[in-house]
């Protein structure tokens, strides 16, 4: 039943896309497009949530006479896709709600309105697809839809470069997935997921498919070193699309990885988890370090997506390690942690991108060094952004902490693993996870402090005004969800359990809703437990008790005066700390290693009147080490091949002949 509803919804989205392209300039079109997307997302959200919590034992499926003629297009909703449909449509619905207000400021609606519903349809279709052909087709559709949205403001030179790099990386990723599915399907071309699931590939083929899935899904999700397009492309799109790309599309990529590796590929080998864990740990730390060096608010958020993808893959890698050793219950715990973080990250990353979009609308600035003091002029945005910042920094009692805490609990179960490589790798990855959480908190002190606190650094920031009600509603709903999932993580864990049971061969975490006071107990009560509700209640109680006592029994008088600043206050807002100076100590600690950072002080000679200057030089080692050589190599090869353009017809014919002989020889030797 629900697969029919979902496909009908996708059809409505595609219809909306056509409608949006027909008359994009008309204000009613904007309203209709976003309202229709919102409605469709709500319907799909309800259908998917029902399927996840109370779905039938046999997943509903459907075959449409489209695609490959001998096969048709298969669609199916099992619990895993139902969970990811919830993630996709919750984000999509709120992005549409936000778009109702934010879209008003769009100066080229014809470049957004047709592609927004198409992008949503693409993401939903990826999750619904049940054969390799429809999966890849939907995947490409999703990539192209988001690419068109990245190109929405194509006149800015940065954006077209971002879109170009995105297109290259997306094609590369799809190519890797195509090869992976080709290997999975085998020589007979059994492209249906059901057939792939039944056939167990040999160990060598399975390893190759894992590598291709890491390349394909990892490049879309943003695993280091495939992350380079993400901080360029995500911020270039309009903010509600940035939220979708960063918060939701990366999760669709995680879905692709989980579907291939946990569902289709069969039992894992121990070395798989080592590769995944090592990549994930590096991704988490490098992502947040990049973010700390970044002063552009939206790009900072995009780098944090890289970090959080690392955290999610740490959970997935642990689950693979446990599964390879037949430890079903710890695997279920690690998977729950990963999927809960998928859900949580989709919430707070959308919230933060909405907030940065609100700042962009109100001030026209993305550079934090030009902002400041927005908490006075945009109080609601500031409050929701604060909630989002605390959530992404994994601070209790918000939702980001709940999932990272579960990941830590999974790490603490890992001494049971017998492989020596894992024994050394897992504690190191645990340290990296802790480091990335602490650095994330530092980074969001910077992001929130520079944008919303202090004094306005530019007139635009001083004249900012609160944004419209639609945007505020979307941000408030998301921050409420962040708090709710933070204090009732047990309910979310129980809702996830059916999806986990399918992936972890029947194992799941203990039922949480029977525990008193919504406590989360991952293994046993004597081992570890966490109760976000009580912690929040204690904090609120003791804070109000203290404030009440102090105000009642001591003093409640407030005197306003100029800032103290040790007696040297300076009224010029330039004397405030900037994002660059805030990150300077951390740059000194980590920068030389991670970015080959150099500081150069340019001191004027005595008597010279020019100011002294401090120049900081950072190198993106991944870009310089991996991508630049590839680009240079491709350029060199193209130059060499250029000679082929100017040959005589005789030479062309002989080339064709040589090629034919070569291919026949290869074929003869192969047989």
């Amino acid at each position, binding site marked *: 039943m629900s697969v029919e509803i979902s496909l009908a919804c996708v059809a409505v989205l595609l219809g909306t896309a056509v409608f949006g392209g027909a008359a994009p300039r008309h204000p009613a079109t904007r309203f209709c497009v976003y309202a229709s997307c919102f409605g469709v997302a709500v319907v799909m959200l309800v259908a998917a949530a029902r399927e996840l919590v109370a779905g039938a034992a046999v997943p509903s499926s459907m075959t449409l006479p489209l695609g490959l003629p001998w096969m048709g297009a298969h669609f199916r909703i099992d619990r895993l896709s139902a969970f990811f449909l919830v993630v996709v449509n919750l984000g999509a619905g709120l992005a549409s709600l936000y778009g109702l207000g934010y879209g008003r400021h769009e100066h080229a609606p014809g470049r957004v309105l047709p592609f927004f519903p198409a992008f949503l349809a693409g993401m939903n279709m990826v999750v619904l697809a049940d054969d390799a052909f429809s999966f890849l087709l939907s995947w490409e559709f999703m990539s192209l839809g988001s690419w068109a949205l990245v190109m929405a403001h194509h006149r800015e030179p940065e954006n077209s470069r971002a879109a170009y790099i995105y297109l290259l990386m997306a094609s590369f990723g799809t190519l890797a997935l195509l090869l992976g599915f080709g290997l999975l399907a085998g020589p007979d071309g059994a492209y249906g997921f059901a057939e792939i699931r039944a056939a167990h590939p040999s160990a060598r083929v399975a390893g190759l498919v894992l590598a291709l899935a890491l390349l394909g899904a990892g490049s879309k999700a943003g695993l280091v070193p495939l992350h380079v397009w993400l901080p360029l492309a995500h911020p270039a799109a309009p903010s509600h699309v940035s939220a979708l790309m960063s918060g939701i599309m990366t999760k669709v990529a995680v879905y692709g990885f989980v579907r291939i590796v946990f569902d289709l590929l069969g039992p894992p080998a121990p070395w798989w988890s080592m590769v995944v864990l090592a990549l994930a740990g590096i991704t988490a730390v490098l992502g947040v370090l990049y973010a700390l060096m970044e002063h552009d608010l939206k790009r900072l958020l995009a780098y944090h997506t890289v970090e959080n993808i690392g955290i999610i893959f740490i959970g997935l890698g642990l689950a693979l390690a446990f599964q390879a050793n037949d430890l079903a219950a710890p695997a279920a715990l690690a998977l729950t942690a990963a999927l809960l973080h998928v859900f949580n990250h989709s919430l707070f990353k959308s919230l933060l991108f909405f907030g940065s979009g609100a700042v962009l609308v109100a001030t026209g600035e993305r550079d934090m060094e030009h902002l400041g003091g927005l908490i006075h002029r945009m109080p609601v945005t500031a409050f929701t952004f604060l909630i989002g910042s605390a959530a992404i920094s994994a601070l209790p009692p918000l939702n980001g902490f709940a999932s990272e805490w579960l990941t830590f*609990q999974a790490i603490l179960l890992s001494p049971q693993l017998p492989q020596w490589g894992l024994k050394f790798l897992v504690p190191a990855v*645990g340290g990296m996870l802790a480091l990335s959480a*602490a650095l994330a908190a530092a980074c969001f002190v910077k992001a929130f402090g520079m944008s919303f606190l202090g004094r306005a650094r530019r007139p635009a920031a001083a004249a900012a005004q609160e944004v419209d009600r639609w945007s505020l509603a979307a941000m408030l709903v998301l921050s409420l969800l962040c708090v709710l999932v933070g204090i009732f993580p047990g309910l979310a864990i129980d809702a996830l359990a059916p999806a986990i049971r399918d992936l972890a061969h029947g194992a799941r975490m203990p039922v949480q809703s029977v525990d008193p006071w919504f406590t989360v107990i991952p293994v046993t009560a004597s081992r570890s437990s*966490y109760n976000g509700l009580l912690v929040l209640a204690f904090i609120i109680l003791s*804070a109000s008790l203290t404030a009440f006592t102090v105000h009642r029994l001591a003093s409640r008088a407030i005197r*306003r005066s100029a800032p103290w600043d040790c007696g040297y206050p300076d009224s010029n807002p330039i004397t405030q700390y900037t994002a660059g100076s805030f990150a300077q100590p951390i740059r000194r600690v980590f920068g030389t290693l991670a970015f080959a950072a150099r500081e150069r002080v340019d001191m004027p000679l005595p008597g010279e009147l020019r100011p002294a200057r401090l120049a900081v030089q950072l190198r993106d080692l991944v870009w310089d080490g991996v991508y630049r050589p590839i680009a240079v190599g491709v350029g060199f090869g193209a130059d060499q091949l250029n000679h082929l353009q100017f040959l005589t017809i005789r030479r062309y014919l002989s080339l064709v002949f040589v090629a034919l002989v070569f291919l026949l020889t290869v074929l003869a030797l192969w047989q």
Partner: protein
Amino acid sequence: MIISLVVQAAQMVLVIALAPLLTGLVRKVKARLMRRQGPSVIQPYRDLLRLVHKDAVVAANASWLFRVAPYLVFSITWVAAALVPTFASGLIFSWSADLIVIVALLGSARFLLALAGLDVGTSFGGIGSSREVMIASLAEPAMLLIVFTLALLAGSTQLSSIVEFMLTSAVGVRVSLGLALVALIMVGIAENARIPIDNPATHLELTMVHEAMVLEYSGRHLAMIEAAASLKLLLYVSLIACVFAPWGTAPATAGAASYLVGMLAYAVKLAVGGALLAVFETVVAKMRVFRVPQFLGAALMLGLLGALLLFVSRSL
């Protein structure tokens, strides 16, 4: 049920009542070691009382965050301190948060305080916040690795279970525990802004971190922050005491007698811990702020080494 609630309430009151005393004791011992008379040990109580009765002077452009942060910082630290076993383990609310949550709660308090430092937009607030988060970004992972070490040994992240495990004879002398103890002391010194990382008694010095961050605070707001700092010091001393010197701690279901013994033992532990801290602070010199990463990096490596040893063999 009633009795366990009373015991939990006693713990909450005890930590808040003893925290300024510990701060006063450290100051007194330091002063005596320097051949000064020093203020009385109850001076911190007088300071707090005087501060709460004063008007709070708030910068004209301070936001609501600036005024709310001290209360939240105080209450978060208080909740965290109340969850560490002091005189008794297995308190009724101990299951609501394990050691990872306690560490993260301190992180929440620091997050708010660092934001409050940036709120007025002064250069001292900025320098304090920026250095505080740099120190925390190394101290927090080191602390979590110490938690890993303890959790792997005791098979639990629950502090009460760890204390009960430490009281059994199965512990013995272990290399990993020694590494964890050294690392924990280093982290505790950094987190509490003590010498050699930071000097709690200094103002107007470019190396100050914590004091620069809270420079704009006055009156009752400052009192809350000072009380939170005392509570945090108490928390770390209690943590080290309950894990590495658990003797005398009353078990979960105990009578009044063992609670009394627990209280006495706890008082002795606090006094010894405070005196040791004062001696340590007197004999070392303050280090440059950019030497701090090396200090904390060593703590991080010790923590990692401790955890790794336990992954290799449970008996190390």
